[in-house]
């Protein structure tokens, strides 16, 4: 828990620092006639301050109570998340070149497999059926212009 707090606080601190740094490259102006950098600069400094308060609080509490490690109640599967995100990333890359109908079918098929649908017939037919249904809904009924890709549908 405490490790998570340190990671969160540090990330937020650097985000605030980056915001403040890039704001300084914009016109700051005065309070009477604020430049475009003043507001984000103030926010960056505020975020750095809040992150520091959080980090100090975590430090003080960790010292006072000694780290209590609570085992996570649900086992986590990082591999599944990585595979899942990779499939979505590849689908987004291929969104325009391959076209919506094909990408939606391939994405559904890949995600079903990743989430543990073992039988090929089930996952193939389910993704084909769903992709066709979604195609009818968005492209034919709602007339939304989605990329046709090289299959031209």
């Amino acid at each position: 828990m405490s490790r998570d707090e340190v990671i969160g606080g540090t990330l937020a601190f650097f985000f605030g620092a980056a915001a403040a740094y890039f704001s300084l490259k914009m016109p700051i102006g005065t309070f009477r006639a604020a430049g475009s950098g003043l507001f984000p600069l103030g926010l960056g400094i505020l975020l750095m301050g809040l992150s520091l308060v959080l980090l100090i609080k975590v430090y003080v509490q960790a010292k006072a109570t000694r780290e209590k490690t609570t085992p996570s109640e649900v086992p986590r599967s990082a591999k599944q998340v990585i595979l899942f995100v990779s499939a979505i990333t590849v689908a987004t890359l291929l969104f325009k070149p391959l076209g919506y109908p094909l990408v939606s079918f391939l994405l559904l098929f890949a995600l079903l497999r990743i989430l543990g649908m073992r039988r090929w017939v089930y996952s193939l037919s389910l993704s084909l059926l769903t992709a066709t249904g979604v195609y009818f809904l968005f492209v034919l009924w709602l007339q939304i212009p989605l990329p046709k890709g090289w299959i031209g549908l």
Partner: protein
Amino acid sequence: MFESFQHLITGFGIALTIHNLFYCLMGAIIGTLVGVLPGLGPIAGIALLIPATYNLNATSAIIMLAGIYYGAMYGGSTTSILLNVPGETASVITCIDGYQMAQRGRAGPALATCAIGSFIAGSIAILGLVFLAPPLAEAALAFGPPEYFSLMVFGFIVLCNVTGSSLIKSLMMAVIGLIIGTIGLDPVTGVARFTFNSMSLLSGIEFVAVAIGLFGIGEVLANVEKPLEFLEGTVLVPRLRELYPTLQDFKKSIGPILRGTGIGFGVGLVPGPAPVIATYSSYMVERKISRNPGEFGKGAIEGVAGPESANNSACQSAFIPLFVLGIPFAPPTAILLGALLIHGVSPGPLMIGQHPALFWGVIASMYIGNFILLILNLPFVPLFANILRIPKKVLLPLVILFCITGMYTVNNSVFDIWMMLLFGGIGFLIRKLDYEGAPLLLALVLGPKLEVAFRQSLMISHGDFRIFLDRSISMGFLLATLLFLLIPVFRIILKSAGKGGGPTGSIGGNKG
């Protein structure tokens, strides 16, 4: 008052056209579905459907999107009672007694009480909206930039105080949202900020991408992380003839329903995640005044009737600050503000006069929507409960496909899909690190308004910060803000005094 009544009748004329009735029905059905499906809350639901409203006129679009919002509140209770899984955060309290009732074979009466309570609460709250909004809009005309600035600061602090486990962490999320909100062209001088020479960033970060990313993709990823066996659950599906509550149930519920309506209406008017606070407060009140407080937690119908009514009532009254001030106090209404802006309507004190058809049409549609939801939710509960039987491993890929499709259609841009995925990753990360997405989203939507109000105030006062204190309404909001900031400090002092000086675990309010 009589004038409001006349306008309302005109509103019914607008809402009852076949076209608008259809969109009201669609909103109610989609909302119920969104509420029933765990992991897809009203925020992601509304955001996903915004692109589908582009071809509609503003009135029909808002009628449908508002329907999704209050429909999700009805649907959320179904999963709480049948599965002990809240469909959205406002239904957490309903789980306590609702699920216990279901365990005792009384799922039907619990679901029916929810639907009836929500209908009564929604109907009364709409009357409040009709008669309170116009005079409040007139009063809000006295608001200048300093008042708006202080009100928004107040809103942020209250929201941060009641969401998440820690005030500091919620405030950090709000500031991150404000920083992200500054990306794009400066609203005052037109200078490009944080765009890094990207044309796509000039118009700022698409808030729909942030909403779908944080609340849709982030939630899906959090589910994917769980092992496969956690993705399935057993569902109790009640039979139709078991649905109807007895006269005894009704007698027990009517008091909590009316009290819940009052509490919810009041809470909806102030900043914060209104439905969550309303359900919590109503539950506490009912338990406190009950003759059998021991029954609570073991299936007391009052513990279902009160919070569910408060939830719906708060949901309706939350439209008052949105329509009257143009300032949403919670993420779902923030998304609706975005939708209104997309359709060229700028909510604020002048909206009722400038867009009477939209204002009164949407209010009348809410009444009709409540009626539709009552009809939908009573006999069709078994049907919606069956939807819960769709395995998550099928549902999650489908949600992802809908997110990608919905996101692309906003601007026909793959860049937006990348943005959504980026915020999906952030949403996943903040869940893991125990942060809340709600303050970030609200800050992103309100950020530009807050900055303009701040800079205009200082221009008026020639750079003198006392302008925020010299004007009485503004000072009132700032004093209230200070009070809210001090509450956690007092709580710590009281707690450590009670414990003899030991440090406390977290500052902040109840879990949102």
